[in-house]
């Protein structure tokens, strides 16, 4: 018996999946409990990363890959990204996010075209901070809330990865609140 805590990569509710090996006629068979649902499943790996679940007579083809952190599962044209949840402490830390951002990050890989702010400068909510380009598409990155720039961490012409920090914001002062 094993219990695995899973959630959507990047957040969301944690779901506990209980696995118990059973004797099955088709491949590796498991008794699975998810919340109040019980499922009898046989799993068959077909080729590298490809496989099939049997749930009674129903066949569910899947593809599977992982980068060591996230588990990506393909089902019927859709890819679901999951991660093994690290437990309650992590969930609590995650809960603090989202009110005030501490940095502007690149939403896509691309090239920085324009930077409209400098370190120390205050900005308003929705103000354009950085303009970037990816695959010939321009995207203006606007301020999520009012604040002040503590550091600009990119330069015009730079090629950045998705998620790269472009600018850091100062700790919010009294009187500046998120919209």
């Amino acid at each position, binding site marked *: 018996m094993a219990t*695995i805590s899973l959630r959507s990569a990047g957040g969301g509710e944690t779901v506990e999946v209980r696995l118990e090996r059973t004797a099955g006629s088709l491949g590796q068979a498991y008794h699975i409990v998810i919340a109040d649902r019980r499922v009898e499943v046989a799993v068959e790996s077909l080729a590298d*990363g490809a496989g099939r679940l049997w749930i009674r007579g129903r066949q569910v083809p899947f593809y599977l890959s992982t980068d060591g952190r996230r*588990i990506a599962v393909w089902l019927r044209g859709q890819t679901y990204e999951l991660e093994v949840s690290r437990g309650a402490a992590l969930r609590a830390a995650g809960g603090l996010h989202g009110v005030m951002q501490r940095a502007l990050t690149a939403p896509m890989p691309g090239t920085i075209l324009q930077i409209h702010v400098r370190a120390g400068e205050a900005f308003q909510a929705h103000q354009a901070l950085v303009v970037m380009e990816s695959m010939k598409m321009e995207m203006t990155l606007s301020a999520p809330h009012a604040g002040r720039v503590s550091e600009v961490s990119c330069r015009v012409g730079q090629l950045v990865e998705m998620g790269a920090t472009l600018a850091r914001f100062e700790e919010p002062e009294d009187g500046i609140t998120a919209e």
Partner: protein
Amino acid sequence: MFRKVLIANRGEIVARVAQTLQQMGIVAVAVYSEPDRRSPHVAACDEAYSLDGRTSAETYLRGDKIIDIARSCGADAIHPGYGFLSENAEFAEACGKAGVKFIGPSPKVIRGLGDKVAAKEMFAAAGVPVVPGWSGKADAKIEDIKKHAATIGFPVLIKATAGGGGKGIRVVENVDQLAAGIEAARREAEAAFGDGRVFIERYVERPRHVEFQVFGDEHGNVVHLFERECSIQRRHQKIIEESPSPALNPALRERMGQAAVTAARVAGYTNAGTVEFLVDASGDFYFLEVNTRLQVEHPVTEMVVHHDLVRAQVLVAAGQRLPFEQESLRQDGHAIECRIYAEDPSRQFVPSTGTIEHYAAPAGPGIRVDSGVLEGSEVSVYYDPMLAKLILAGRTRMEAIDRAIWALERFVIMGVKNNVAFLRDLLMHDRFRSGELHTGYLEEHRVCDDRDGQIPDEALIVAALAAQGLAHHSGEPAAGTHDLGPWEAAGRWRAF
């Protein structure tokens, strides 16, 4: 007939053109940038030569390098595909001077129609309806454009004079946004086409985009091969195209077809082209522009008229007559194309990059896949993020749509975010199925609900098995595998 043809492009269109060339007994030549060295488009051709560079500007936009390669390898002709140099009159002219046939219209026609302003004036004079409220000058200063925009009335559309493919297009709601919009559109146009000129026109509310495929030869024959409805767009780029259009009745189709043929005749058009129209709710139609190239969505037409458009392009370029006459052309059944992009529909369709880990395209009767990628392909920031085109034929529109849904649910792409599930949801959407389309459809209807938190049990089961090392996967062991259960020994296994 040509003996050897160079295809001056990358991705799926190269493989598609190469197939026809090879079937005609013509040697197909690929060119490639450094990131594309191992791309399927190179493998699809008989010969391949390096363009020594990474960005589009260093490679696929370098007409001089491409013509040098064509001459040194002995190619008689160049097929430009779409995008890149396909609508570049200077390139077409340089091909002619180098003694290499450009497979497309003459440089004069490309230049004439590439100037969207002059083209509109020419067609309006010939009696083809044009977008109302049209104004503006090709090279106008921002102050002048502001004046014209005020006369036209907001919202206005800013478009690249040399444009196409949705690049350099901006909708501007009010005069305050105009200067910034024009600046951005100019930069995009400059980057995409090497020509930063823009113009403005009235933004027609809730229009359909319906285009007609036209074809001319050097013997004075001009025909149309019916329409394609391309109203489903995001960021002003088409993602679903179909033929016939659910909006046209036989009478309207006849009138629009006539207008398209008139436009092609007036322009002196040869080879394949597309006359684009906006159709409003009352069924009035307005000329938009002519694309002087083979379109991305040409397979939709091929699937209903049963002619190979690339073959016709090659024949016409070689001086032969069109292989079809207007009277013999029929629209047979229905075809629909879904463009598969590496992008994230839940985040404003931002392009996604990465390595394709798993790739498996669906197959079966009535299913065609024109693909530019394989398992292991890199999707880079250098080029357009279109991965493949899925084209479905059916006896009726519903049959084609249902076939598309079936195929999308079996299209495996992992490693880059993609729009496969989004397209499936769109095809299942009631308004889409009833054919009530317009170019703002995706802004008006929320097709893709946020699926976060709605993970099916099957995905949880597979992920749990993977985390326990009980299902074979590609890549590294998932986090959490140190926590193996009592049947650890059974851990890694394959088929049984």
